[in-house]
């Protein structure tokens, strides 16, 4: 159990009659980058939402560091060291970039009710926020309202907020989508640096080339089921995966 940071066992969720995720099982090792791939509607984000506590699975189990966590609420998962970003960016638009990060910084410091009456505007918090913003390359934007940032910077802000939780597991939901090539490269580089600091990363990605380039292993979902699992080269050669992405009979290069 100790070499696995997250284990997902037979995870399923039904929305009414729809089986959005159906018996999915996978593990993430320490400091591993695991890519979660699949066509639209494959259940990737739903999987994420179950791991991060937004949805309660219909059946199946989720273990974080050997501790069962399915059914916990999102803020409890954050407390346990799971940071996440959102596919559709969700900044606190009316707050400044710095305040956005400080919201996440506050959790370990002020998690008791009495402590939550302390001031948040401390030098220590500002310093910590500044460091995190520097890591993601948003220094200089600290006092800008988050709602004013362009998409590339919003994606960085999402990562900054998740990093402020000092996570052991980072869930990145399509953090490249809508970005230009050079921006993608910057964020790829950032993700690798985060991993160097001992963080395990589960990333959802739509763009096969980007995902294959950065992931140590990938899991491919289709129609809520696990279709394939393995190293990027194994998976990209898998006929089932090619079929799911391109349809039967195609032989185009998907990697």
């Amino acid at each position, binding site marked *: 159990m100790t070499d696995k940071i997250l284990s997902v066992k037979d995870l399923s969720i039904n929305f009414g009659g729809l089986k959005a995720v159906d018996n999915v099982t996978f593990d993430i090792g320490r400091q591993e980058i695991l890519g979660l791939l699949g066509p639209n509607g494959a259940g990737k984000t739903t999987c994420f939402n179950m791991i991060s506590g937004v949805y309660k699975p219909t059946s199946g189990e989720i273990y974080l560091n050997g501790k069962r966590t399915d059914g916990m609420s999102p803020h409890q998962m954050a407390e346990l060291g799971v940071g996440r970003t959102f596919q559709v960016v969700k900044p606190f*638009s*009316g707050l400044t970039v710095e*305040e956005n990060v400080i*919201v*996440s910084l506050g959790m370990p410091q002020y998690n008791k009710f009495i402590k939550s009456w302390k001031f948040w505007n401390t030098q220590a918090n500002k310093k910590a926020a500044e460091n995190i913003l520097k890591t993601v390359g948003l220094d200089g934007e600290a006092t800008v309202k988050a*709602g004013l940032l362009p998409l590339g910077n919003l994606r960085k802000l999402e990562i900054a907020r998740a990093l402020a*939780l000092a996570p052991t597991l980072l869930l990145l939901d399509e953090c490249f989508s809508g970005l230009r090539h050079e921006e993608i490269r910057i964020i790829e580089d950032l993700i690798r640096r985060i991993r160097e600091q001992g963080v395990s990363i589960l990333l959802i990605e739509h763009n096969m080339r980007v995902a294959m380039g950065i992931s140590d292993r990938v899991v491919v979902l289709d129609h809520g089921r696990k279709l394939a699992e393995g190293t990027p080269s194994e998976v990209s050669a898998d006929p089932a995966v090619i079929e799911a992405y391109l349809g039967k009979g195609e032989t185009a290069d998907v990697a």
Partner: protein
Amino acid sequence: MSIYMINVATQIIIQAIAACGLNIIVGHAGQISLGHAAFVGIGAYSNAMLTTAGGLTFWQALPISLLIVGLIGLLCGLPSLRVKEDFLAITTIGINFIVVAIFQYTPALGGALGIGGIPNVSFFGIELKARAFFWLCLLFLLAVLAISWFFTKSWLGLSCFAIREEETAASSMGVSPVRAKLSAFVLGTLMAGLSGILYAHYMKFISADSFTFPFSVTLLSIAVVGGLGTLFGPVVGAVVLGILPEVFRPLVDYRMFLYAALLLMMIRFLPGGLLGGSDLLSVKSLRKRKALPLKGGGKIDR
């Protein structure tokens, strides 16, 4: 100041205190409430009962009344954990009607006759008459403003802003929505309760009519006109909406018309209120806005 002006000013302050509470719930935590008058009423009735039937002094009754309001505020905050926006608005309207009905149909609370003979507030044996009572209210308003300021600077306040802006993201960043929302609700209802308590001792007589739904709407108008989410917005709103009816007194027949027109103009041209929107620290962000002009009037948030 003439006694007439003292009276107008006292009423403005009492409304400002209630609006400060509503500002915490709606402006800071983003939870719409259209039943705020109910909590003003609960504060007023508690203190009225305790000082008349209960025989306590104002100061003895005050903490007990606040405790009662706070507990009921906690209960009434629970729906906000389940329902959002329009549905929460309807739920809080419902709370308002229920509370008013309880006041009206409970004989022990005076029924339709209300409660009269509420004593003056005395301070170390000195009875506070109009002028002194005005200063007492002003002191309470300053305390409420200080607490509001402290709230916006506390981590709890920041977590409420995060909930207001983006609840899903906030909870994934470790913010407990339960704690943030209930704290805001309780703090807001306590301020409403305080306002009601002062109102009861100012009027000396209260009845259920004073705490009906239209009063909730008035309180929301005050908060909106002044500027939701600003520190002094509720005070500015209370002053503007408190003085206007007095100014328009010669046009008595058209008073409500002018009042409505003003509100419509506000929504059209100054949706963020006089003190400028959902900005947390209006002065600071005004400065920022100058440095960073936005296209088309510059409202992006919400």
